[in-house]
């Protein structure tokens, strides 16, 4: 049976987290990473609207009107949670106290530049906390479907307005794990049933292909 590519991505991304990491997860696939963690790995989730130790979505009827996550969904706290105002929350983020942020992208490029907040002429939304998160987190992992409507998202150079310059450390898609290095993008692993040629064809950026490329399921 064909697995949901988003679950494939979330499960692979979960392997990047270490027990005890403090992590900020974006909306969409990144949120699914919390459910895909190995049993022996516990992480502390930070929510930029002012919580360290946020839990999952609140059960219907059990919502707390004072407690939402950064996606504005009513959520629960875990034991040991901490609440603060937004300046303190972003001090934690900008100050390098978040081990990892996992977020989606519209485009990533060979220099690790990230574009994920605005399409010119498109719907006006705003960057929210994304620019601060990628500027401050110790490690930035992009999780996304490899292409959009058949068009590559991993580019020589981003064409969309940037969220930040040179911040991305790792790109995880349903097709590949790609590491951003000073030399360029290195193809580290291939997704289920995917060949090197498949990845190259779906990627605009130049890829450095080592002699040995791993696999993930």
């Amino acid at each position, binding site marked *: 049976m064909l697995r949901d590519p988003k679950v494939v991505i979330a499960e692979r991304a979960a392997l990047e987290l270490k027990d005890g990491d403090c992590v900020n997860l974006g909306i969409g696939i990144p949120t699914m990473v919390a459910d895909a963690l190995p049993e022996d790995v516990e992480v502390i989730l930070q929510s930029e609207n002012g919580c360290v130790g946020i839990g999952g979505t609140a059960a219907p009827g059990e919502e707390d009107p004072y407690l939402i996550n950064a996606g504005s969904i009513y959520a629960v706290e875990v034991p040991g949670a901490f609440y603060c*105002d937004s300046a303190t929350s972003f001090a934690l983020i900008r100050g390098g106290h978040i081990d990892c942020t996992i977020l989606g992208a519209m485009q990533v490029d060979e220099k690790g530049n990230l574009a994920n907040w605005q399409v010119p002429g498109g719907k006006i939304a705003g960057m929210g906390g994304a620019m601060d998160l990628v500027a401050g987190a110790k490690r930035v992992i992009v999780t996304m479907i490899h292409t959009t409507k058949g068009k590559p998202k991993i580019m020589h150079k981003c064409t969309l307005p940037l969220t*930040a310059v040179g911040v991305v450390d790792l790109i995880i898609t349903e097709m590949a794990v790609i590491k951003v290095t000073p030399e360029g993008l290195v193809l580290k692993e291939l997704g289920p049933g995917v060949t090197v040629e498949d990845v190259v064809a779906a990627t605009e950026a130049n890829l450095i292909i080592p002699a040995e490329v791993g696999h993930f399921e």
Partner: protein
Amino acid sequence: MKNKEISVEQAISMIHDGMRLMVGGFTWVGYPHDLLEALSSSGIKDLTLISNDTCSMTVSVGKLVVNRQLKKVIASHVGRNPETGRQVNAGELELEMVPQGTFAERIRCGGAGIAGFYTPTGIGTVIEEGKEKRVFDGKEYLLERALRADVALVKANRADKLGNLEMVKTSKNFNPLMASAADLVIAEVEEIVEVGELPPECISVPGILVDYMVKGAKTCCVIQK
């Protein structure tokens, strides 16, 4: 000691056309519901709204957008309220987008007597346009300036009669910052208790920052489609 409790009507009478208005809240948590209901039907206009987001069209500050009471919005996210984007594209509303951490820190500085700060956030993006850049220890930073307002409307769970405010969980968000960064601070609270009843270490905002209080409705969950 001055009695700080006033009616919602008295509070709204202190807000005038053209003012710079800070409103606490992160979408539908921690916003002053009753004050915004009254303000959105007051006809007061040409306000500059300084709020994290413009919520949705029917909730919180979203109504101020829909009722066309704003000339400018300073926010980090307006995606949940399509009317904000429509007015901006039509040239009817000015929008200043600020990264959320920068937004919070600008307000904190506004209340803390600090003129500005250097942040790495926004380097290499449209946010840096027109701003001073400086290198410290080999890394580039942007100068961002403090933000203040004429009036701040904030929300708390409980207050005592001195105006000390207790805020809980994620309803704190921008409220304590805004309570320090406006010339006039009006807090909407759900309950007002006697002085001494709030444990001092649970107070998020000292009463010396609060000019007036109104007693508002109990917070409810907002059901969004």
